């Protein structure tokens, strides 16, 4: 009896460990509304470690709201979100900060600080977590991140002096600087010309390989999704309406799914 219990317990612990190692993000029965506007109704999603999942959906379907819930920027009413094994809604602000070191967010509007140079923009997340780091080390990290996106020469420019594509790259460099385990991309290619969009998409794949990150990629841009995603999830009416590989979904007979592929 006693030993029986032990095995089950250790099994449970093991299972827990497996879950922790295998699942970077798990979203269960997520509900979120603003007043009467119910945006997410029972949304479910799992992202395995090292996997890139694309979430596609119409404008206003709640994609940005979804990933802001994941990183704790928006509070939700119902459901559970686990990120790297931590229940996001149960964390206090300190614990959330610790988790956010490992989770990076690329904002839809880049969110570069207008009043700071590119260098200061990249140093900003560093100065919080590594207060004792030496100036040379910080410099090295900044330059490494900028080199990764091919923009080392812009280090002393202001964001307003950069083109849209360059800004996106700098924003990407800023998300990389903490060497995150998870990156959340909010429409990384929107507003860019097709060629630049493709470059950014390939850059995302490169980063994915180099740092072995897991990610959620929000996008309307099918060519970006095709290049970057291992799995595609369709967000329709607040639910994960369909899920599968890019090619699988493209062959679907469902009208709602077909609409996306036109």
């Amino acid at each position: 009896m006693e030993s029986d219990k032990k095995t089950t317990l250790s099994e449970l612990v093991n299972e827990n460990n497996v879950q922790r190692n295998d699942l970077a993000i798990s979203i269960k029965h997520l509900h979120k509304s603003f007043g009467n506007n119910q945006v997410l109704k029972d949304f479910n999603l799992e992202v395995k470690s090292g996997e890139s999942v694309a979430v596609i959906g119409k404008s206003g379907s709640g994609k940005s709201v979804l990933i802001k819930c994941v990183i704790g920027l928006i509070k939700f009413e119902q459901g559970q979100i686990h990120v790297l094994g931590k229940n996001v809604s149960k964390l206090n602000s300190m614990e959330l900060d610790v988790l956010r070191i490992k989770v990076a967010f690329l904002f839809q509007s880049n969110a570069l600080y207008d009043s700071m140079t590119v260098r200061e923009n990249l140093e900003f997340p560093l100065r919080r977590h590594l207060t004792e780091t030496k100036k040379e080390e910080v410099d090295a990290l900044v330059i490494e991140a900028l080199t990764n996106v091919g923009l080392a020469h812009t280090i002393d420019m202001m964001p307003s002096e950069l083109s849209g594509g360059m800004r996106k790259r700098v924003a990407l460099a800023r998300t990389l600087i903490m060497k995150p385990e998870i990156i959340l991309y909010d429409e990384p290619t929107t507003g860019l010309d097709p060629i630049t969009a493709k470059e950014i998409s390939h850059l995302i794949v490169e980063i994915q390989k180099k740092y072995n990150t897991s990610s959620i990629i929000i996008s309307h841009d099918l060519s970006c999704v095709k290049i970057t995603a291992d799995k595609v999830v369709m967000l329709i009416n607040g639910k994960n309406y369909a899920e599968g590989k890019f090619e699988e979904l493209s062959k679907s007979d469902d009208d709602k799914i077909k609409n996306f592929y036109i």
Partner: protein
Amino acid sequence: MVPKVVYEFFDELGMISYFGWRFFKEGIKPRYEFREMIRQCYYVGYKSLGLVALTAFIMGLVITIQSRPTLVEFGAEDWLPKMVSVSLVREIAPVITALICAGKVGSGMSAELGAMKVTEQIDAMDVSGTNPFKYLVVTRVFATTFMVPLLVILADAISLYGGYLGCNIRGVVSWQLYWNQVYETLSYGDVLPSIIKTFFFGYAIGVIGCFKGYYTDKGTEGVGKSANAAVVLSSVMVFIIDLIAVQIIDILNLT
């Protein structure tokens, strides 16, 4: 049922009060953003310095010129420096300075924070482990609270100098005599309360400017609207605080 306008008014009042309270709550906890605070102080002071100096000078001059005929009528021309210095130091310099700061600094803060909100920069700070309220709001409210009084002291001095010139346009008052009369007239009861109330002016300007920016509605249009609302509300607030201050000074019999 309460009318919607009344409900919204009190709703906003409550939110602003809470926002103002958070300044103290979060401001006293470490870590302190000294560099950013000093930068903001420099910014607030430097941005309004020229304008405050110019208007203070003109106010001193104009008030003196306008007061003269009335005093001459009563044969009390000698009283000109006394009368002018009291009205300048007690009322005109503080209120004019605060209004200028509300227009220039308050709207600037609201527009800046509003733009940061709309372009997700505030969210980005939150995500990168910086408390945006502390980094953006506490530093700015601190700056206005301490720089507005400094600007008022400067405005007092410059407007009194304007008064001196005003006295000398028609009559002759020596530099020595003018300042002797000013010092004789002004007591601590005039100067201190009028400086103390300017801390509240500065605090109100900072809190309202930051509040309007921090809670800007989505979109660029919202940024302009909140900057506008910040100026209107903080200007009205300056007068309300002034009214309350006058009552308190009166009750305590400080003058």
